[in-house]
């Protein structure tokens, strides 16, 4: 099984706290991974610091995804970072209010972030500030809604065999 290394977790938290101080909102140990919430103003620097720091070396962006918290009307972005050398994974979270869904882009740090951010934009309508090509990627360009927000209906509205009374459920 994957071993959790509390030493390294503490090191990460200490280093980040030392660097960004109160911009680190919260850190908690969830089931398998250290999870750090960061203010969106510093998220880019935070990621860069994590990537470039000699001891941490989080050189691999495992994944990036958007979140929608309808109860607080917030949109968030979650980064999973992985340090190959230290074999250490952490999760960085950041969030902002739905009325101003802009985040800095991580494309310059990892080219891999390019499509993931486009996907996040596509699903949640999160704007990534200096993204080179922020267009819809999976959905048709004409779409105006952001389908993964909780208020968007899942079902295809034109399904016929379901409208039939015998398929209604």
């Amino acid at each position: 099984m994957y071993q959790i290394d509390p030493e390294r977790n503490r090191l990460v938290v200490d280093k980040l706290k030392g660097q960004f101080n109160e911009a680190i909102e919260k850190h908690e140990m969830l089931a398998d991974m250290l999870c750090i919430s960061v203010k969106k103003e510093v998220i880019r620097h935070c990621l860069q610091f994590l990537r470039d720091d000699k001891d941490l070396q989080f050189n691999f962006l495992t994944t990036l995804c958007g979140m929608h918290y309808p109860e607080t009307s917030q949109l968030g972005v979650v980064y999973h970072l992985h340090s190959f050398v230290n074999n250490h994974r952490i999760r960085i979270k950041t969030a902002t209010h739905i009325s101003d869904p802009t985040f800095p882009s991580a494309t310059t740090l990892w080219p891999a972030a390019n499509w993931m951010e486009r996907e996040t934009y596509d699903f949640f309508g999160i704007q990534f500030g200096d993204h080179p090509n922020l267009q819809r990627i999976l959905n048709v360009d004409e779409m105006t809604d952001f389908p993964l927000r909780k208020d968007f209906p899942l079902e295809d509205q034109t399904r016929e065999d379901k409208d039939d009374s015998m398929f209604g459920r």
Partner: protein
Amino acid sequence: MAKELETDYWERDLVHTPEPKEYNTLNVGPTHPATHGVFQNVMLMDGEFIVSTEQTIGYIHRAFEKIAERRPFYQVTPLTDRLNYCSSPLNNMGWHMTVEKLLGIETPKRVDYLRIVIMELARIADHIICNSVIGVDSGALTGFTYIFQDREYIYEIYEEICGARLTTNMGRIGGFERNFSPKAWEKIHHFLKTFPAKLKEFETLLVRNRIFMDRTINVGAFPADRALAYGFTGPNLRACGVDYDVRVINPYCSYEEFDFVVPVGQNGDTYDRFMVRQEEMWQSLRIIEQAIAKLDAMDDKETYFAKDPRFVLPPKEKVYNNMEALIWHFKIVMGETDIPAGEVYHSIEAANGELGFYLVSDGGRTASRLHFRRPCFIYYQAYPEMVKGAMLSDAILTMSSMNVIAGELDA
């Protein structure tokens, strides 16, 4: 220069002014035979050479993440089938392990080993597709039909275990739906006995054939640092020389007990990818053999699911007869169990690389958010960089050797 010519003393014709350099655009896809699934590449071509590529994907976008938010956990398994449909059981197991992690279900060792047998079979099946398709795209169709017969055999094994060939929906949260039948074991043993010779034959057809080597060596080469920056994982990263394998780095499902080699390549070209996949099949065979040895050494031949009554469907004979069991059965099927709130990230070494499930639960009936880290989606964006300056034929081989599965790409 144009001015000079206008004052030509004899010709008063319109002088042709040079236009900016013009390249051909070639529209590869979405139904081009080489794109297998569906993605479009608009290639800017200078003769046979590719100047730049622009991809359009999403032609089979099916909104997996949205559906997953509306379905109880066990109904997500059929969805994961359709991610990388060449190796459905791998995805199934990955998803089950994720849920088990969230729910805190401890699986018995026997389940782990059974899963490993299935997962490695699935890996072989996936690599068979990828490598034989490299052959097909380079024009050697025959190798495909030879090796595909073994894939058919793997289908038979699947069918014996779960009842489906491709989209298996195999296993349940906590284990399997039924124990492996004697026939299934027989087939697995037969497979282990016959497959090496077939694989060898397939290798003889291609591996040391100069035409094939010329077609693949230094085609679509990608340096390791770029590959890491682009988030490559799996065989594609290993072909670049980085021995990153989730099974070794973050062992799950008792992989730490197994002895196998992580094959790596040299410079990440198509030949490396082909060879890495080829070697992985051999290693998978070894792992299966070890797993079977371990299973044979066990006294327990009956356990096939975790005995966790909170989340695992009770056995049918109890449901039929026992009120308590019936109630739990209803609760689990309706999704009314007390699922703990929390988030987990679990990743497995799928055939194409690190397949991650980021599962956020708020304690409700369904996941509040489920994000798939789909390896294809992440590394396919490096394709333009890989084929820049290459020829059209190279681009096609590069694409097939990357093994981009449309279902996984578009979610």
